[in-house]
């Protein structure tokens, strides 16, 4: 092990880097307190190329360190790549780091058997679809990677997101960065945006860009791709408003307006309340509101 001046290490050469992001607050605090305990692995050439320790050197530099402990090794690029991956396997890799592993192995012409072995170690199946997704993610812009990590996106949603054009991804990530979403909401939104794009050839972001609420966003997208269904929902809501139903009575219609029947629910605490509810139902029946509701489901 040697102590090497940081300026003699090429920090821009990231061909063996699989860490993302390089900024790590916990590591920064630890190095501030204890210094760099675990030496870097660097190649014996000038300037030195880092094999592992990208986060450590980033933190050390930020803390104003001028030199850093290193193991200087002489090895070929393939061995160095393998060393980089294996030195990181002791921790849980995030999805971007896994994507980097896959992409770099392909870029460095590892055999299918070698790649398949590494993919299995990082819990990825060696399938064309997965490889394609991972390589696309590895080569995506940093704001996309940050978004994927911040939202803790599943591979399925990542694939949907990367299916959009670059300028659309920018708009989508900007829009969704402002909104709290669950994984299933994200899936729904991305699916609706895909349908909108497929149907109309583009996504009209001007109508949805300013939305800060997931429900408004969903409603707006739904109106755009399901205008008939949204219209029926509005009609139903209008009729129900006119009915002025008390909380003890509810009229339920099939959400897709498929079923011919409707459900009328009464909650009552005794015969008098039942009588009152029936009187109310009779009055909305006489006013033609029930018929109007049936008109939304039966033709």
């Amino acid at each position, binding site marked *: 092990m040697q102590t090497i001046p940081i300026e003699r290490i090429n920090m821009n050469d990231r061909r063996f880097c699989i860490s993302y992001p390089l900024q790590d607050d916990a590591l920064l605090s630890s190095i501030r307190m204890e210094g760099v305990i675990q030496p870097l692995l660097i190649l014996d050439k000038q300037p030195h190329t880092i094999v592992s320790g990208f986060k450590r050197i980033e933190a050390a530099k930020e803390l104003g360190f001028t030199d850093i402990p290193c193991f200087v090794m002489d090895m070929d690029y393939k061995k160095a790549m393998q060393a980089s991956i294996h030195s990181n396997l002791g921790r849980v890799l995030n999805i971007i780091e896994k994507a980097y592993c896959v992409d770099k192995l392909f870029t460095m012409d590892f055999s299918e058997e070698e790649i398949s072995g590494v993919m299995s170690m990082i819990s990825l199946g060696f399938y064309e679809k997965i490889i394609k997704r991972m390589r696309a993610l590895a080569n995506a812009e940093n704001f996309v990677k940050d978004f994927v990590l911040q939202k803790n996106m599943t591979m399925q949603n990542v694939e949907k997101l990367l*299916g959009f054009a670059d300028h659309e991804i920018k708009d989508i990530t900007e829009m969704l960065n402002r909104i709290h979403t669950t994984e299933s909401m994200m899936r729904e939104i991305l*699916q609706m945006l*895909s*349908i909108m794009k*497929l*149907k109309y050839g583009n996504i009209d972001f001007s109508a949805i860009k300013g939305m800060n609420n997931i429900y408004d966003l969903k409603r707006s997208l739904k109106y755009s*791709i*399901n*205008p*008939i*269904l949204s219209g*029926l929902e509005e009609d139903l809501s209008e009729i129900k408003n006119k009915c002025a139903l008390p909380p003890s009575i509810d009229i339920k219609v099939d959400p*897709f*307006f*498929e*079923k*011919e029947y409707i459900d009328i629910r009464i909650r009552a605490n005794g015969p008098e309340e039942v009588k009152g509810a029936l009187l109310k139902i009779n009055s909305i029946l006489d006013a033609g509101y029930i018929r109007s509701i049936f008109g939304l*489901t*039966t*033709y």
Partner: protein
Amino acid sequence: MGLQPIEFVETKGDIVRNCPGTKHHICCGYKTIDLVEGCILSCSYCILKEYINTPNIKINSDIPYILSQISEAIDAEKTHILRFGTGELSDSLAIDRRYRLNQPLVEFFGETKKAILELKSKWAQIDHLTPFLNPYIVISFSLAPQRIIDKEEKRTSPLYKRLKALRKAQESGCFVGLHLDPVIIYDGFEKDYEYLIGDIGRIIDLKRVLWVSLGLLRFPPKLFNRFLDENRKNLLYGEFVRGEDGKYRYVKKERVRIYGMLYNLLKEQEKDLFIYLCMERKDIWRSVTGMTPEDNEALMGLFDSRIKTLYGGIL
């Protein structure tokens, strides 16, 4: 064509089955014969891709066993005139010229004279069968505007060939069936269907059409994502909801409008056409056709009447 491996099998068990139909919708009581499993045609909307988990085409080569199963089904039915088809798990004609699979079935139905065999296809090659055709065989084609055939029904015959084959079948003494199924909503589809139905009326003798089915596009949820991945604009252009059977269908208001339009266009061509809706709800039947078959049994009754009207006493 013919890139998929062909496998000859002798499957025992239920080769002749009731068409599975779909829950909460009215179905016609069709009997399916699993003569071939898998298809060499490549329709983008085909649900077989979800159900059959192998690229192989399986041909059931035990014809005596299949015929015995058909016989049993005919003998067991006391009420209705049975309608059989081989187009459930495959296209009835796509590989038939090469393998001559239908000929023994065609001859069997001609000799038995108790039931109908429908050969349903998008592959317009029937010359090899015409010497054997008889009144108990119905040659049917699925028909769609050429624009849809070009985009979504790869490797199938063009529309004009399908219509010519139907005409040829009629000239050979057969009744024919027309299946406007799946009807797909896309930009300008109304006009295309108007022209299509006009062409049908010009080329085919509509008095000798045994039945016409109408079925709007419907598919299981898995296919939705596939259509999206494959950018199938035509297939996802309309507005879909999940039906009671879990399948995606166009929103009911649209279904009623489109069925009504097609029904009226067809009736304008020939008022006596027997038109049925494939796997649809009671209320849609009522508003489109004015008929209200209460259940599958009632629809089978309508088929019986239609067959009796066209066949007289011979069935």
